[in-house]
């Protein structure tokens, strides 16, 4: 599904990613862990198409096409979804309006008809329930005045609606209390499917207790230093990143 080969990226003159190689097959959940500043968030941003980063070398093949050639919205249409570490506020725009516009934009490009208002509402209510969110959420402005936990739930709610093929979850566990962590984690688990892959960027192991990854990769200084199964995450939790960074 996703093949990252020798990916290099920089911000200004500063190289951040220095040759990332990663293969993600359909149905797999990969966790990217690593210390602050290792390039974890940069990786998910580059994959989603943020133009603050300049790709200087390498390629990313997603479902047979060169992902880096696509605009951010084209990636969304092709089934890529990024859950933001810091979801952005859009004042004056109701959440329900964004959800509907996003869903219909993606549906249009998948050759599906626009959902009628009634159908949409039914669907969104179903997803709200999963995320244990109140319907009042729909009528608040996008992320405006949301608590950290509400913002993250809202991201996963969007993911549930958009049903991406490749979900990039950037530090979705940060800022969550224990209960919210469980809701968000289970929300992610529900999305696991044979035709869907997840790239989970996280600093801590706690989310991985709920969402068991198939693979764990440790990113440091812009390179994947170590890969393993979910037991690697537990090891890191005990021993920290120090040994790996030095490697």
């Amino acid at each position, binding site marked *: 599904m996703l093949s990252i080969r020798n990916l290099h990226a920089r911000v200004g003159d500063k190289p951040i990613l220095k040759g990332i190689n990663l293969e993600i097959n359909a149905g797999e959940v990969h966790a990217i862990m690593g210390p602050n500043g290792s390039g974890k968030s940069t990786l998910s941003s580059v994959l*989603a*198409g*943020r*133009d*603050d980063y300049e790709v200087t070398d390498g390629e990313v093949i997603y479902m047979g096409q060169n992902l880096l050639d696509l*605009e*951010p*919205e084209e*990636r*969304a*249409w092709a089934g*890529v*979804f*990024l859950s*933001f570490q810091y*979801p*952005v*506020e*859009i*004042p*004056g*725009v*109701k959440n329900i*309006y*964004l959800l509907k*516009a*996003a869903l219909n*934009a*993606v549906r249009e*490009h998948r050759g599906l008809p626009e959902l009628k208002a009634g159908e949409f509402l039914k669907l969104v209510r179903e997803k709200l329930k999963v995320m244990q969110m109140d319907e009042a959420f729909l009528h608040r*402005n996008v992320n405006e005045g949301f608590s950290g936990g509400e913002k993250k739930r809202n991201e996963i709610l*969007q993911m549930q609606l*958009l049903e991406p093929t490749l979900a990039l979850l950037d530090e979705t566990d940060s800022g969550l209390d224990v209960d919210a962590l469980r809701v968000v984690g289970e929300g992610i688990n529900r999305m696991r499917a044979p035709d869907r892959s997840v790239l989970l960027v996280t600093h801590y192991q706690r989310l991985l207790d709920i969402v068991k990854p198939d693979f764990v990769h440790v990113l440091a200084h812009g390179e994947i230093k170590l890969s393993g199964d979910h037991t690697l995450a537990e090891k890191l939790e005990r021993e920290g990143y120090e040994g790996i960074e030095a490697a």
Partner: protein
Amino acid sequence: MSQQEIDQLVDQDYKYGFVTDIESDTLPPGLNEDVIREISTRKGEPEWLLEWRLEAYAKWLQMTPPEWAHLEYPPIDFQSISYFSAPKKQGDGPKSLDEVDPALIETYNKLGIPLEEQKMLAGVAVDAVFDSVSVVTTFKEKLHEAGVVFCPLSEAVHSHPELVKKFLGSVVPQNDNYYAALNSAVFSDGSFVYIPKGVRCPMELSTYFRINQQNTGQFERTLIVAEEGSYVSYLEGCTAPQRDENQLHAAVVELVAETDAEIKYSTVQNWFAGDDEGKGGIYNFVTKRGECRGDRAKISWTQLETGSAITWKYPSCVLKGADSVGEFYSVAVAGKKQQADTGTKMIHIGPRTRSTIISKGISTARGQNAYRGLVKVLPGAVDARNFTQCDSLLIGDQCGAHTFPYVEAEEPSAQLEHEATTSKVSDDQLFYLRTRGMSEEDALNMVVNGFCKEVFQKLPMEFAVEAEALLGITLEGAVG
């Protein structure tokens, strides 16, 4: 997103820049007493109105153009402008749509103004002002039954001279300001609305202004009188063809609201803004003022200003009656090399008078947008209240937003609040929405519409739809 990309998105072509090929009866350029006499004669005006015009002209000659606005433009040569233009075949004015020149109807259709069936079903009466003469008035009959007068001002001069005489210039005096004085001397036509005591106007009243002739100024004058306990909602839309020269538009709007009366006045202004280098476009110098003369009277101005090379406009409320209310909701867009200096004046005279000002300024490309507002509370306006919110949105980094709020409170019990923000459409916002499948253009529209929502919600539903057509942007929330 680069500046160039942003410019491309924002800078959509002016859709209404076509010229209608109609023979016009146009006076040669120039302004003097004879020209004013000629205008008056052609319109068959009574002597008192000619005298009124000449009086205004004499005052205008003594005045100088205002220079305090945050605007830059070369001096206007008032002798190079023609002060009267009418489509030729009009004669006394058509009695029905059938008599209107098909080319005119075609123009309105291009503008998306449904003069015909659909609009009638929607229940909107349209008084269309084409250059200077009002060409068609629909729905007169139904309004007549309700006792509402809605007709060209030139007609009202003959049909309701006592009303016109009583109210004309009573809110905006001849010498109020330079452009109001000019308008008083040469005003061509406009709408007259009279809502009798206790009548709720059965439909939204709508007028479209359009400047067609080259080198003509448009000087329309609108007068709306709402008697005790009456209500009217009035919609005004404006467009102009694309021309290289600058054209002058100096209008006057006067509103009178008596006891318990309410007037809602909405504008979508989409005059040609000039090109990217600031060539051409309308100079829009407009005086709009309403007086709440009676207790509990209410006047609301809602405006969406997207066009004109220069906008100089301050729709105001004079709150005389006790407990009267003034409102101003505005979205002003300045792109290209447009300059807007717009805002409002709220003059609190009566006790417990209240006013609300919500101003949203959007600047993009090399546009300069200034909010200028005055809240004045006179002694005796006990417990007067004002709330002002003034937000600016910047798109790109070559535009400007400026805020000039003036407050003069001479009544110690008055409570005044002022909030102001300036924000930029951020790359984060656009990227966020694009990752959700929105195109760059849709993402920008969504952010901008969110910013404007408080104001768009105040537009009548009918107009919100037309505003959408005129702007070519989606009105999030307000229409659905």
